[in-house]
């Protein structure tokens, strides 16, 4: 049985061309980019080229890109870096309750350090209202952080509009674009963002590398102290193969985006329609149209997400859930609770995220297998209507 991977929001396989591009940088071109000799210069050139390429892909300058160890570090760097650099101006930060833990837990840390955080609510589809951000901004506000698209329910936030408000109010604006970078066109000027986080492994790049876009002139303190790497903002010898692979992944994503986006959209909608019409008492979580082209998140009443996930896994299908049991805590997903789902509906959620290699056949197979699993699990559910 061929396995089906439908958890691309968690991570993606490395593209073969990415792997090929990285290989020489483990062996032949192994130099330290800070070294002056030819070994070092060759590695330096690879990083410079990667930085140029990635900057160009989002309409940024090369010196506005800081390579990091991934999306989490980029988020932490943005929030802590701006918070500590602008303490004199104020201590107030605005965000939403549906951010990734890399943002919410970092804000939790800042809260303990004397910063104040306002979480503006989101509606039942997961959308934040730019008007709420405007109202929440005070003369103490230094930073707003709203994700570009949500990793669980796929809702795409009105970043451009929120950015416009932040510009007008002279407040820094950060967006976590981990789920959109390489999947949707991104222009940092159009989005009006000062900081933007991205991660390579969500777009068939390697794990362990990401980046933070920092608009020129943004006041931010360094994240790691040591050498002068990354313009003194993030010390540590660069992950040369990772950065090269990241750049290659961006190049491929850019060339494929026009075809891949619409293809995934068709498969996504087929999957959503198939689930909702074949499984009664199921609902789509997130926004119908303002939604990532690869994200399906449904709640299937009366059954718990992890039991669905395990049954699907037994059939060779990899999915994800917002239910608590898989995460080790008993509370279901903070995102699903924030969009107003009751705990039992939140525990009944299933996320299927498609990728570059997802086929029509795979979607059909999921639609064939899932209703059978649901029937079996509902037979043993005490919540089922009699």
């Amino acid at each position, binding site marked *: 049985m061929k396995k089906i991977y439908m958890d691309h929001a968690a991570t993606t396989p490395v593209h073969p061309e990415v792997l090929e591009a990285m290989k020489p940088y483990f062996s032949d071109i192994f130099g330290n980019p800070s070294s002056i000799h030819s070994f070092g210069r060759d590695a330096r050139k690879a990083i410079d080229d990667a930085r140029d390429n990635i900057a160009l892909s989002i309409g940024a300058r090369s010196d506005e890109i800081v390579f990091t160890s991934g999306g989490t570090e980029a988020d932490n760097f943005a929030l802590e870096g701006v918070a500590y650099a602008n303490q004199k101006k104020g201590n107030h930060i605005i965000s939403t309750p549906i951010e990734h833990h890399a943002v919410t837990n970092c804000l939790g840390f800042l809260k303990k350090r004397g910063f104040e955080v306002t979480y503006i609510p989101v509606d039942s589809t997961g959308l934040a209202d730019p008007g709420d951000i405007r109202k929440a901004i005070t003369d103490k506000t230094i930073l707003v952080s709203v994700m570009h698209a949500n990793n669980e329910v796929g809702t795409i936030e009105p970043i451009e509009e929120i950015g416009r408000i932040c510009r007008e109010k002279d407040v820094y604006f950060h967006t976590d674009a981990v789920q959109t970078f390489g999947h949707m066109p991104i222009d940092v000027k159009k989005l009006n963002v000062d900081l933007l986080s991205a991660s390579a492994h969500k777009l068939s790049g390697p794990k362990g590398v990401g980046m933070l876009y920092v608009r020129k002139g943004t006041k931010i303190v360094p994240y790691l102290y040591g050498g002068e790497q990354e313009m003194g903002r993030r010390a540590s010898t660069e992950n040369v193969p990772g950065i090269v692979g990241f750049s290659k992944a961006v190049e491929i994503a850019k060339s494929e985006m026009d075809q891949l986006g619409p293809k995934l959209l068709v498969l996504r909608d087929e999957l959503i329609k198939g689930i909702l019409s074949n499984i009664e008492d199921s609902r789509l979580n997130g926004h119908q149209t303002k939604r990532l082209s690869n994200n399906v998140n449904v709640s299937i009443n009366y059954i718990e997400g992890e039991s669905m996930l395990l049954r699907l896994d037994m059939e060779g299908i990899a999915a994800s859930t917002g239910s608590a*049991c898989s995460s080790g805590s008993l509370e279901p997903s903070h995102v699903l609770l924030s969009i107003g789902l009751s705990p039992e509906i939140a525990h009944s959620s299933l996320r299927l995220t498609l990728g570059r290699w997802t086929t029509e056949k795979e979607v059909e197979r999921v639609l064939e297998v899932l209703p059978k699993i649901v029937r079996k699990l509902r037979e043993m559910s005490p919540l089922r209507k009699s």
Partner: protein
Amino acid sequence: MEHFAHPRNVGIIEDPSGIGKVGNPVCGDIMELYIKIDNGKITDAKFRTFGCGAAIATSSMITEMVKGKTIEEALKISNKAVAEALEGLPPVKMHCSVLAEDALKAAINDHMIKTTGKGLPGFKPHEEHD
């Protein structure tokens, strides 16, 4: 995994001697355990569970374990014994076995109230599953 993949004794008993309902939707586990008692022995047990893989497996296992046992013997089944019978549970899933033990005690408690008017001495379900 075996008891999750092929759970035993799924369903309800039409005229049960006792029913134990434990858990709540917030923590994501709800367990219903039905037992049939004849001459002081548990002759049948069935369950319905809303919960993760481990919750389903522990429910299935405890229904197998209680069959043929006297009430006294059944009361000696601990959550650890259920977990051991499943060849161990990861620490984050141990609460599922606690839930199974609670469901069994609640079912026996229900039976005793029905037959003697008095509940199981000292019976108190674990707080988190109230």
